[in-house]
């Protein structure tokens, strides 16, 4: 048996570009020619394609938690969908638990427990227990074992008191726990968790992170996608950063942070932000990457800049922001986090 739970080699997925959706043609694809009248048409015109995943290589070891990070539209959901057999790759291969995702799709499905679309992936008109019993049958668990397993998971997910109520009466966190219990039913060796803590309150998210860590201790391999950097940092043994359909960095969280350790992060909080100011700050020698985001409803902005030498850069930054109605509220020089690694590599924040 291979040492790797999941292997992907040069995985590519292209979709036909839809008119008016902003889908960009893949690099190197011929531009769509002007449509001829039907009587002048000969061969079918080539269709413009949008490349969602562009040659992804992954090797996820058995028993590790692997975090896949990327902004919206980076290709992480498409990659997950190819790994769990919902999508066929345009080219390249993927193996899960040693099985090819196209040729041995059913063996792959038996090896996986997947949480996709969270609370929407279960039936709201069934109770929590009925949902689990239903999916236990779909995952081919014998009836006698299924009953015990459902009871065990209901207990583990702490929903025993409300297991017989309809899911429509549950909170988001409870529904998410049922979705996770569903993924664990057949005790699959590999778990794919797509944004498992999305929409959960802090306490529920913390409980779920603890559960994920326990599942790793029990021997499960876990592929996790998340928008929360701290979550990926805390849970993952290794992290792959994906952007524009490619894995642009892959290492342990510590090694990734080490990459920009010689750099410093200048973090400002200010009011009266305007785009011209951004242009002026980017022109300052020593300022590498600049990201901004508004904090809440108020006119308070957080501005993050990477710099090799903050001592030399700071006076020029302060000079640039003075006047024009901009007011500096707070300023810090901080140690790089995984979020900063991400910004350094992709030029954008994870939630962009």
């Amino acid at each position, binding site marked *: 048996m291979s040492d790797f739970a999941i292997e992907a080699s040069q995985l590519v997925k292209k979709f036909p570009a839809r008119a008016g959706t902003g889908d960009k043609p893949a690099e190197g694809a011929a531009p769509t020619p002007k449509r001829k009248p039907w009587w002048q048409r000969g061969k079918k015109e080539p269709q413009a394609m949008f490349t969602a995943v562009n040659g992804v290589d992954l090797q996820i070891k058995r028993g590790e938690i692997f975090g896949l990070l990327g902004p919206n539209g980076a290709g992480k959901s498409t990659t997950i969908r190819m790994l769990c057999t919902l999508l066929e790759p345009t080219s390249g291969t993927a193996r899960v638990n040693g099985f090819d995702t196209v040729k041995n799709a059913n063996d792959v499905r038996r*090896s*996986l427990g997947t949480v996709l679309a969270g609370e929407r992936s279960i*039936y709201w008109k069934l109770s929590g227990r*009925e949902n689990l019993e239903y999916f236990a049958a*779909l995952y081919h668990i014998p009836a006698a074992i299924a009953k015990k397993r459902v009871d065990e998971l209901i207990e583990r997910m702490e929903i025993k008191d409300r297991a017989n109520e309809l899911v429509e009466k549950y909170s988001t966190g409870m529904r998410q726990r049922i979705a996770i219990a569903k993924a664990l039913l057949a005790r699959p060796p590999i778990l794919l968790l797509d944004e498992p803590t999305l929409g959960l309150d802090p306490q529920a998210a913390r409980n779920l992170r603890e559960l994920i860590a326990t599942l790793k201790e029990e021997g499960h391999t876990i592929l996790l996608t998340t928008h929360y950097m701290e979550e990926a940092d805390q849970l993952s043994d290794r992290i792959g950063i994906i952007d524009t359909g490619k894995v642009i960095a892959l290492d342990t969280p510590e090694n990734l942070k080490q990459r920009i350790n010689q750099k410093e992060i200048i973090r400002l909080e200010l009011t009266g932000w305007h785009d011209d100011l951004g242009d002026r700050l980017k022109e300052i020698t020593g300022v590498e990457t600049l990201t901004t985001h508004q904090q809440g409803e108020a006119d308070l902005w957080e501005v993050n800049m990477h710099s090799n030498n903050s001592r030399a850069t700071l006076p020029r930054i302060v000079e640039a922001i003075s006047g024009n109605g901009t007011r500096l509220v707070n300023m810090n020089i901080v140690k790089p986090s995984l979020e900063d690694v991400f910004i350094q590599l992709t030029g954008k924040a994870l939630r962009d």
Partner: protein
Amino acid sequence: MNVNSLAVPGFSSDVRAFWAVVRREWTVFVRYPSWIVSLLIWPIIFPMGYLLTARALSGVDGSGLTTFQNTTGLTDYVGYIAVGTMIWMWQNIVLWSVGYSLRNEQMRGTLESNWLSPTWRFSYLLGSSVPQMVSMITLLVVSGLEYALFFGVKFNGSILLTILVILASIPAVYGLGFAFASIVITMKEANAFVFLVRGIVMIFCGITYPMAMLPAWMQATAQWLPQTYIIHAVRTASLSTEGFAGISHDLSMILFFGVIWLAIGYVLFVVMERRARKTGAIGQY
């Protein structure tokens, strides 16, 4: 630490999965109680318009009915129209419910979680059709009782032969539903097709009038539609005393079209499911 899967693949597991789909669909169905209202009201309301039109056209003394009797061989125009509309209603509901069963799962978000399991994919369509069949057979029985009670229809024929025709019609009626369901997974939208098909059945298959009223080319086209034979056979079995001899030809044609439509439904399902995996349509809603 090794993780040992609890799954035990095999034929019996596939049968249990199919049964689980049937139970799930039935449980969800009965938790929307509005279906009881539809079950009782629709069979009365739907043929009413046609019946009143027929009564108006037949004259106050019913003298116009002689022509009807000469063309159809039947005196009970109410029963004639009621049976025709009942079969049309059946096919129409199957197109909407079975035809949209996978699409509804897709919109709810549950289609993907079903598709992630190792169960035979056709089970989802087949399994969700079983409760639909039960509810439709109930609808047909309720319709028959209501027609007898409220419209005074006399079912002079054989109940057993009527049941036989209805059971034999299931493959043709549901095969068409499966074909629709398969197309809808990738096309997302099939309202126009449903309207077209039910319109064709309404006009070509003579749900309220004898086929002899139609021009020759329409009569010829109607011979290719299984609903033509179903309507004729149910009328003969339930309203006349012709017995098995009166329905034997219709029955063989119904079964023939049943095999054809089931095969078309299955092949379309396999093709469209593969296409959806290539295009990513399974998860789009």
